[in-house]
């Protein structure tokens, strides 16, 4: 790819850079939560952004595209889950272990929090879990979650209310156990 001046054209696509920079962590977390095996999550992340970049022209709401990315993540993860159904998924929890170490105390607190939240999410009804993750973990608004999940806004509010209540109860139980 040579330009007329002889300089090599850059292959970097600005929109791809922008998308990836803003949403890479979100996509990674989403795919991990949707159960994509850790051994395939890198490919999954790349697939999500390849699809998103390719379909970007058809997407008008550029201000907040996490809701749109969620729908891509869910489908990509479902595809990988299907293709990997027979494979061992022992590495599923490796996301936390794969991070760079920070200071030990903070690392311990983060691992503890991550395990606690994951345990809570595992015990939550799937429909409520999806809403809780998008709104309270990822910070989407209720209308954005409604759009991403294809459900009514009132349903989002209802599920979120229940999930939050259960989460607060779980925190109280956790504190009680810590004091023992």
């Amino acid at each position, binding site marked *: 790819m040579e330009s007329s001046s002889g300089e090599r054209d850059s292959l970097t696509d600005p929109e791809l850079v922008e998308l990836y920079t803003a949403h890479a*962590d979100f996509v990674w977390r989403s795919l991990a939560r949707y159960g994509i095996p850790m051994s395939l999550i890198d490919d999954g992340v790349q697939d999500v952004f390849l699809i998103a970049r390719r379909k970007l022209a058809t997407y008008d709401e550029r201000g907040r595209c996490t809701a749109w990315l969620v729908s891509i993540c869910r489908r990509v993860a479902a595809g990988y889950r299907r293709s990997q159904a027979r494979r061992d998924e022992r590495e599923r929890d490796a996301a936390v272990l794969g991070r760079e170490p920070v200071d030990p105390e903070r690392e311990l607190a983060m691992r503890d929090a991550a395990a606690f939240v994951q345990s809570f999410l595992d015990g939550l009804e799937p429909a409520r879990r999806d809403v809780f993750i998008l709104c309270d973990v990822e910070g989407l608004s209720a209308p954005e979650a409604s759009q991403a999940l294809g459900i009514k806004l009132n349903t989002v509010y209802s599920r979120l209310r229940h999930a939050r209540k259960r989460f607060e109860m779980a925190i109280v139980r956790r504190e009680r156990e810590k004091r023992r």
Partner: protein
Amino acid sequence: MNEPSDEALSILAQHRVATSMPAHRREANFACLEARFAVGESPAMDVSLPVMSAGISTATIVTAVIAVAVVSLAVWALVSEPTVSWRLSSGADVERPENLEPVSETVPESQHGVSVPAPDETDEPWVAPMPLASPPPGVEESHTIRPPARRHRTGKASPTVAASDEVDPLAAEVELLKRAQLATANGHPERALELLELHEQRFPQGRMSEAREVARLMVLCNLGRLDEVEHRRGRFLADHAGSAHAQRVARICAD
């Protein structure tokens, strides 16, 4: 609506950080993503998406698609010639026109001048998701360019497309970078460096040379080879001041 307590928000924030993508994989993934995007590779798990663009209904889009199909059919009927008929037919009983050359499935190494050594056991597991074409008869696999997976939904690849992929040196570049990424992710940073070095030897001015340097800086950073990081970073920023990678390069091992 009951709002989450401060403690709940704090726990959730910690969870978010703890489950985020590791920095070295973030960079390696972008290098690989960029390479795949550059060669127009299809996602391994392609998906159909609900249309979420504002103001365009599904009915409108379906109508537009049908209209385009009808117009295309009409145009095709008007202008179709034997060449088109041959392409659309099975080809078994139709004489091929002169202007269509047969597409050779064998690409001798000397023709394109690039080759990628066969993956070894350090990165082999990561190559598994990529279905690769069998090498042509008489050609060793290690001398065959293995293009990035282009998945055709119909399962019938156009021979012309397949041939152009095979001769594209960029595909060989991408293959090497992917394997370097896989080696890194599999805990073989030294092997990743070897593959990146190999890439530099074969494609010193390759189209993925910037992505290669970013990947190499990340590996060196993770190995704690900070002097090399500093040296290479300085050279990269001097040589590619306007690069889209510059900001990311400046942050590698900067903390």
